[in-house]
C-alpha cells in the first residue's frame, strides 16, 4: 500500500526540480497564512457575504483585476525565465522540456488568464457607470462568469506542481497535443482550464451586449454613448461569435485524447490541419477582442486629457464595429505556410490588409483630438501617448506579415514574436494600464501615486523597445521561435542579451507598479478623490461620488449629448444649466447568491476529474453543476429594494444633499 501511494504521488505531483519544490512550499505557506489571517480576524463570514457571493459589478471587477495582476506576475516570471535561458548561447538553466512548458504557460496565461480578466475588470468597473445603469443586465450571470474564470484559471495554474504543465504551445497544435505525443494530464489541464473559463467569457459577452443595448439611461442613444462603451459592444460581439468555436475545438481535442476519437489524429481519418483552421477562427478574433477595448480606453482618455471632444466620433464608431466583423474573416493568415490553395491565401492576405484601415482611421482620430488640445500628461495620458508609436510599428509589421509570399520567410521567426508582442503589449497592456490608472479613483476613492507611476512607465517603455526591437532583427537573421538555446556560431548572442536586459527592465517597471499600489493604499488619504471627478472628466461615471455607492446612481440621469457630464459642467459654469426637480425613488437591486461560487467549485471538481481521466470525479462534478442550475431555477426571490431614506443617507455622507 505504501508503495502504490508513493507511485501515485510520483505521478500526481511534479517531482525532481528544486524550483518546483520551492513553489510547493511557497503555495502551502501562502494558503496557510490566508487561512490563519481569516480565522484570527474572524473574517470568513465577511469574505462569504462581501466577496464570494457578491453580484455587484464593481466588486466583481475588483476580483477580476486582482486575478489579472497575479497572472501578470506569473506570466512575467515565465518570460524572465525564458529570456534568462536565452541570454547567452548554450545555457543549461532550463532544459528543452522545461522551456517548452514555460513558453506554453506564458502564452496561455498572458492571453487567457491575464488579458481577458483585465478587460473584464474594466468592462465591469466602467460600463454600467458610463451608461447610467445600476448594474449589468444579468448580475447573477456576471458572478457565474467570474467564478468560472477563477476556477478555470486555478485549474490551469496548479498544473505546474500537480500533474505537470502542458508543453505543446499556447494553442496546443495536434498531433503534438494528441495522446501518443503528449501523455499525461498536462495537456488536459490546458484544455479544461480554458474550457471552463471560456464558458465564463461567453456569458460575459452576452451579458454586456444586453446591458449596452437595453440599459442605457434615458436620452442616451447609441450615438451618444462613450467610445469605451462602443468598444466593449464591439468586443462582446466578437466574443459571442468566436468563443463557441473555441469551446467545440478543444472539446474535440479532448475527445481524441480521452475516447480515442479521430478528429485531429494522424490516423483513422483524422486531420490535424482542421484543428489549426478551427482554432484560429477563434484565435484571430480573440486578439481583436483584447485590443478593441484598449482602443476604447484611448478614445476616452485622449479626449479627457486633451480637454477636447473626440475627433470624428461617427468614424470611430464605424471603425470599431467594422473591425468586429472583418476580424472574423482574416484567420487564414495564421497558416499561410500550411499548404492551402493560392486562392485561399490571397483572400486572407487581402482581408488582413483591409483590417489595418479602420485601425489607421482610429490612430489619426486620436492624433487629431490631441491637436490644439490642452494636454495634461497624467499617467493615463502618458500610457496613451506611448501606445501610439508602439502600436503603429506593431501594426505595420502586421501588414508586412500579411504579405503572404513574404510571410514564408517571417512565419514563426522572431519577427513574428516581435510583431505580436508589440501589438499585445503596446496595444493591450498599455491600454489596460491607462484604464486602470484612469478609473482607479472611481472604484477606490483615491488616485495612484503619479511619481512612482512615472518610474514604472519609463522602465516599461524603455524596457519594451530594448527587449523587442532586437527580436525583429533576430527574425531576419533566421532565429526561429521556441528555440530553447542556440550556438555561438549563429551570431545571435548580442541581440539576445540586449533583449534579455530589456525584459528585466520591464520586470523592474512592474515592481514599481506593485510598490505604487501598496504605497498608494498606505497613503490613500493624501490622494483622496473628494469630488468624484478627479480628472475633470467628460462622461457620466464622473458625475457620481468616489468610490461609487453600491447602487451607482441615486437618480438615473437624463442624457442630452455625447460627453454629457462635460455638457452639464459647461452649462453650470456659464449659467445656462436647467436644474431638474429630482425625486428619489426606492432602488431595485439584485440579491447576493452563493450559487455561482458553488457551481464553479463543482466545475473545478469536474474539470479535475476530466484532466486525470477519473470518470467518477468528472461525473460527480457535472452532477453538482446541474444541481446548482436546478436550484437556481427554483429561486424566485432574488431582488430587494433600497429605501429612499438609505439612499439619502449614503449620498449625504458624500456631501450630496437630496
Amino acid at each position, binding site marked *: 500500500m505504501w508503495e502504490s501511494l508513493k507511485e501515485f504521488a510520483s505521478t500526481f505531483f511534479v517531482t525532481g526540480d528544486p524550483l518546483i519544490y520551492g513553489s510547493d512550499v511557497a503555495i502551502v505557506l501562502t494558503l496557510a497564512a490566508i487561512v490563519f489571517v481569516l480565522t484570527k480576524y474572524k473574517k470568513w463570514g465577511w469574505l462569504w457575504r462581501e466577496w464570494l457571493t457578491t453580484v455587484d459589478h464593481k466588486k466583481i471587477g475588483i476580483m477580476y483585476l486582482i486575478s489579472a495582476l497575479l497572472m501578470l506576475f506569473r506570466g512575467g516570471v515565465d518570460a524572465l525565465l525564458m529570456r534568462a535561458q536565452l541570454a547567452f548561447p548554450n545555457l543549461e538553466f532550463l532544459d528543452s522540456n522545461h522551456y517548452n512548458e514555460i513558453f506554453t504557460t506564458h502564452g496561455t496565461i498572458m492571453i487567457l488568464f491575464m488579458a481577458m480578466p483585465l478587460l473584464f475588470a474594466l468592462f465591469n468597473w466602467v460600463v454600467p457607470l458610463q451608461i447610467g*445603469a445600476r448594474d449589468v443586465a444579468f448580475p447573477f450571470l456576471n458572478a457565474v462568469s467570474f467564478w468560472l474564470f477563477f476556477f478555470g484559471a486555478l485549474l490551469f495554474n496548479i498544473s505546474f506542481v500537480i500533474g505537470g504543465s502542458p508543453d505543446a504551445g499556447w494553442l496546443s497544435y495536434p498531433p503534438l497535443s494528441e495522446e501518443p505525443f503528449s501523455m499525461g494530464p498536462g495537456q488536459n489541464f490546458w484544455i479544461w482550464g480554458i474550457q471552463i473559463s471560456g464558458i465564463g467569457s461567453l456569458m460575459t459577452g452576452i451579458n454586456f451586449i444586453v446591458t449596452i*443595448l*437595453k*440599459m*442605457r*439611461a*434615458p*436620452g*442616451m*442613444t*447609441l450615438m451618444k454613448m462613450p467610445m469605451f462603451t462602443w468598444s466593449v459592444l464591439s468586443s462582446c*460581439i466578437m466574443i459571442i*461569435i468566436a468563443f463557441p*468555436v473555441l469551446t467545440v475545438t478543444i472539446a474535440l481535442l479532448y475527445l481524441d485524447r480521452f475516447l480515442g476519437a479521430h478528429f485531429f489524429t494522424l490516423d483513422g481519418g483524422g*486531420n490535424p*490541419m*482542421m484543428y489549426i*483552421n*478551427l482554432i484560429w*477562427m477563434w484565435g484571430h478574433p480573440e486578439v481583436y477582442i483584447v485590443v478593441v477595448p484598449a482602443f476604447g480606453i484611448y478614445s476616452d482618455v485622449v479626449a479627457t486629457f486633451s480637454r477636447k471632444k473626440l475627433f470624428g466620433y461617427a468614424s470611430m464608431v464605424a471603425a470599431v464595429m467594422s473591425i468586429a466583423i472583418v476580424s*472574423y*474573416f482574416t484567420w*487564414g493568415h495564421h497558416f499561410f505556410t500550411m*499548404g*492551402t*490553395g493560392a*486562392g*485561399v491565401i490571397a483572400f486572407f492576405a487581402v482581408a488582413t490588409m483591409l483590417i489595418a484601415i479602420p485601425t489607421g482611421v482610429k490612430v489619426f482620430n486620436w492624433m487629431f483630438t490631441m491637436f490644439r488640445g490642452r494636454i495634461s500628461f497624467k499617467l493615463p495620458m502618458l500610457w496613451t501617448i506611448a501606445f501610439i508609436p508602439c502600436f503603429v510599428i506593431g501594426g505595420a509589421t502586421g501588414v508586412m506579415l500579411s504579405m503572404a509570399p513574404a510571410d514564408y520567410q517571417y512565419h514563426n521567426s522572431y519577427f513574428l514574436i516581435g510583431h505580436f508582442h508589440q501589438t499585445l503589449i503596446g496595444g493591450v497592456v498599455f491600454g489596460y494600464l491607462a484604464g486602470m490608472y484612469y478609473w482607479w479613483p472611481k472604484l477606490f476613492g483615491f488616485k495612484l501615486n503619479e511619481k512612482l507611476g512615472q518610474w514604472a512607465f519609463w522602465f516599461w517603455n524603455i524596457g519594451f523597445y530594448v527587449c523587442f526591437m532586437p527580436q525583429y532583427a533576430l527574425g531576419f537573421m533566421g532565429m526561429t521561435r521556441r528555440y530553447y538555446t542556440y550556438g555561438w556560431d549563429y551570431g545571435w548572442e548580442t541581440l539576445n542579451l540586449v533583449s534579455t536586459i530589456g525584459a528585466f527592465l520591464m520586470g523592474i517597471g512592474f515592481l514599481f507598479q506593485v510598490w505604487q499600489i501598496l504605497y498608494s493604499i498606505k497613503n490613500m488619504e493624501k490622494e483622496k478623490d473628494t469630488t468624484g471627478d478627479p480628472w475633470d472628466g467628460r462622461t457620466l461615471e464622473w458625475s457620481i461620488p468616489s468610490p461609487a455607492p453600491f447602487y451607482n446612481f441615486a437618480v438615473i440621469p437624463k442624457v442630452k449629448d455625447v460627453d454629457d457630464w462635460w455638457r452639464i459642467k459647461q452649462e453650470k459654469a456659464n449659467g445656462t444649466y436647467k436644474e431638474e426637480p429630482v425625486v428619489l425613488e426606492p432602488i431595485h437591486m439584485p440579491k447576493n447568491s452563493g450559487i455561482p461560487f458553488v457551481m464553479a467549485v463543482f466545475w473545478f471538481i469536474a474539470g479535475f476529474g476530466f484532466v486525470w481521466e477519473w470518470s467518477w470525479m468528472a461525473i460527480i462534478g457535472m452532477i453538482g453543476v446541474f444541481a446548482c442550475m436546478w436550484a437556481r431555477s427554483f429561486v424566485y426571490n432574488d431582488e430587494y429594494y433600497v429605501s429612499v431614506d438609505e439612499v439619502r443617507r449614503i449620498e449625504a455622507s458624500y456631501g450630496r444633499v437630496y
Partner: protein
Amino acid sequence: MANHGNQNAHHAAGHGSLKSYVLGFVLSIVLTIIPLVLVMNPVLSKTATVVVIMMMAVLQFVVQLFFFMHLREGEKPRWNVQALVLGIVIVLTIVIGSILIMTSF
C-alpha cells in the same frame, strides 16, 4: 434607447395563434416528407437531390422561424433578428470557409 417599458403588453415575446402553429406544423411535415421520398426513392441525380433537400431544409427552417418562433413579432428595435442574421452569416462562414480551406490543399 430608453430603459422604460414602453407598452402595457404583458407577455415577453410574440404570441401567434393556433392557426399559425398548425400551419407551421403541417408545412414542416410536408417539407420533411418530400426530401425523405426523394432520397428513399431516388428520381433525381445525386447532386440535384442534395440541392433540393438542402433547399427544403432551409425552407423548413424559415417556416419554423416565423410560425413557431414568431420572428416577425416582438418589440422594436429587433435586436434578436439582427443577432440571428449575424449568427447565420457566421455559421455560413465557418462551414463554407472550412470546406473551401480543407479541400484546397
